[in-house]
C-alpha cells in the first residue's frame, strides 16, 4: 500500500515536550537568578526529556512495552484479527485550540496562585505568641486572683488586648506555680466574668492593667449565653463544650511572663497540684476530647 498523505505518520500528542521546555527555561533563568533553580530546571528537563524519548521509542516499536499478546480461543490461535483503527490525529485548529486553552490556564494559574496565597496564607503563618511581661511576682499575692489585661501584640495596639485571671499558687516543690485562665468563653468566645465583686481600683505596669480581687471568685460566668465555670475553669453549666483555655507562663528575673495559650478539656484538683488535661489551642465551640473531637481532626496552625 502506498503511503498516504491522508494519514501521515506523526508522533502522538504528548505533554512531555512542554515539561522539557519548562525545565530548559528554568535552567536558563537559574543561571541569572539562583543556581539551585538551574539544578531543578536541569532535573525537570532530564526527566521530561527521558519520558518524551521513551514515548517516541515505544511508538516506533523500539521497545516491547505495551505489547499485547494476541487473543487465543480453544488453543487454535487468534480467531479474528481486530480491526485496526486509524491513528488518531489532531488538526492544526484543534492543536491551536488546545494549546491556547492550556497556555491560558498556565498563565491564569501563574497570575492567580500567588494572589490566592497572599489572600489565604498570612492568616495561618507566623501566628506567634511571644511571652509578655506581666510585672514583678510581688504584684501577685499568693492565693489571690488578679484580673490581668495586657496588650499581647504591641504594634497592633488595643485590639490585641487580652484578659486573664492570674492566681499565684505558691511553690510546687521549689518551682513557683501559677494558674492563668483565659477569659474567652469556650462556647463562642465572649468574655467571661469572675463571679465576685470586681473593684474599680486597678494598678498599672507598663501596658498591663492589674485588678486584684479582694475575695476569690466562686467561678466564672459568661454574659452572652449563660455558660458557667468553676474557679479552675471547669464547665459546670450552660453551652460551653470544655473548660476555659489557659496560658502557659514563665518566670524571668522575678517577673511573671505569660506565654502561649492552650486549650483544656477539664481540670482535676485545684491550685498547684491540679491535674490539667491540656490540648492544642482550639477555637471556642470545638470539642477537644471524646467522640465529638473527631469532627475537628486538623487544627490550623495557631
Amino acid at each position: 500500500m502506498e503511503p498516504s498523505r491522508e494519514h501521515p505518520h506523526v508522533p502522538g500528542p504528548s505533554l512531555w515536550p512542554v515539561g522539557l521546555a519548562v525545565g530548559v527555561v528554568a535552567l536558563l533563568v537559574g543561571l541569572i537568578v539562583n543556581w539551585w533553580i538551574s539544578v531543578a530546571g536541569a532535573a525537570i528537563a532530564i526527566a521530561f526529556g527521558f519520558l518524551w524519548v521513551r514515548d517516541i521509542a515505544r511508538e516506533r516499536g523500539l521497545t516491547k512495552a505495551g505489547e499485547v499478546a494476541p487473543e487465543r480461543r480453544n488453543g487454535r490461535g487468534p480467531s479474528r484479527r481486530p480491526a485496526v483503527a486509524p491513528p488518531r490525529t489532531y488538526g492544526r485548529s484543534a492543536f491551536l485550540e488546545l494549546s491556547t486553552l492550556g497556555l491560558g490556564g498556565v498563565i491564569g494559574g501563574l497570575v492567580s496562585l500567588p494572589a490566592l496565597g497572599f489572600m489565604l496564607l498570612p492568616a495561618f503563618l507566623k501566628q506567634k505568641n511571644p511571652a509578655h511581661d506581666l510585672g514583678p511576682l510581688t504584684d501577685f499575692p499568693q492565693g489571690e486572683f488578679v484580673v490581668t489585661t495586657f496588650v499581647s501584640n504591641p504594634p497592633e495596639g488595643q485590639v490585641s488586648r487580652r484578659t486573664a485571671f492570674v492566681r499565684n499558687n505558691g511553690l510546687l516543690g521549689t518551682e513557683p506555680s501559677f494558674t492563668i485562665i483565659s477569659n474567652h468563653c469556650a462556647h463562642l468566645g465572649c468574655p467571661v466574668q469572675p463571679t465576685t465583686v470586681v473593684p474599680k481600683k486597678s494598678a498599672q505596669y507598663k501596658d498591663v492593667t492589674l485588678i486584684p480581687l479582694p475575695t476569690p471568685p466562686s467561678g466564672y460566668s459568661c454574659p452572652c449565653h449563660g455558660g458557667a465555670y468553676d474557679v479552675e475553669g471547669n464547665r459546670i453549666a450552660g453551652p460551653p463544650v470544655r473548660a476555659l483555655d489557659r496560658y502557659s507562663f514563665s518566670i524571668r528575673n522575678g517577673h511573671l511572663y505569660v506565654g502561649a495559650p492552650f486549650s483544656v478539656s477539664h481540670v482535676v484538683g485545684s491550685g498547684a497540684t491540679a491535674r490539667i488535661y491540656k490540648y492544642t489551642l482550639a477555637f471556642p465551640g470545638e470539642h477537644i476530647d471524646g467522640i465529638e473531637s473527631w469532627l475537628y481532626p486538623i487544627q490550623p496552625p495557631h
Partner: protein
Amino acid sequence: MATRMSPQDRIMYPVDWLEERSGLIGAVRYFLFRRVPSDTNWFQTLGSATLTAFLVQATTGVILAMYYKPDPQEAYPSIVNITNDVFAGWLVRGMHRWGASVFIILMFLHMGRVFLFGAYKYPRELNWIIGVLLLALGLAEGFTGYLLPWDQTSYWATTVGININGSAPFLGPFIAQFLQGGTYINADTLSRFYAIHMLLIPGAIFALIGLHLYLVIRLGVTSPPWSKHPAGSGPTEPPPPAPPRTGLTRPAPRGGTIRG
C-alpha cells in the same frame, strides 16, 4: 445628497445612531417590553423591589466608603464623623443601615412568593438555586458589614459569628481563622471584612443578579397558581404589526433602508 429628516427622526437621531451601532436599544426594548401573563399581580414586584434595595445599598455603600476608614484606630471615629458632621451623613448611613434589613426582608418575601406560586418548578429550578446563592451572599454582606462600625456590639457579635463558623466540623476552624486573618480578631480583621463586604461579595451579587435576570427574561414570568390560563399556553392574539418608523419606538428591520 442626503434627504431632509423629519423632526421626529431628527430628535431620535442619537438613539438611532446608538441602536445602529450597538443594538442596545433593541436589547432594552426586549428587556422592558416583553410579554408577561395578564394575571400577574403586585406580589410579582417583590423581585424588582429587592433589586432596588440592593442598588440602594450599593449606591449608599459607595458614598459611605468615601468617608469611612477601615482601621482599628480610625473606624469608630470615622463612623461618628459620618453620622454627626458630614452633610447628610446621618441620612446616607441610615439608609445603608436600615436598607440592609429591608434588602434581607425583601429577599425572604420574594423567595416566599416564588415558593408559594410554585415558580421554582421546571424550567426555573436553576433560577431558584441562583436565588438561594444570592440569599446566602446577602446574609454574608450583613455579617461582614456588622463589624465595620467597630463598636462593642460589632466586635462581640463578630467574635461570636466567627466562632460559630469555627465550630463547624472539619473546615470550620480554617474558615474562622481565614475570616479573622489570624488566631484572634486583630488589626487585619477589620480591613479584611471591609474588602469582603464592599468588593468581593457585591461583585458576586452583581454577577448572579445578571444571571438571575437573564433567566427571568429567557423563561418568562409565571402566572399565579389561580391563573385560568393553562401553564405553557402561548399568547392567543397575533403579534402586533410593526410600527411605522425605525428607532426606539420601532425595531429596525435587518438590512433596512439607510436614511440621511
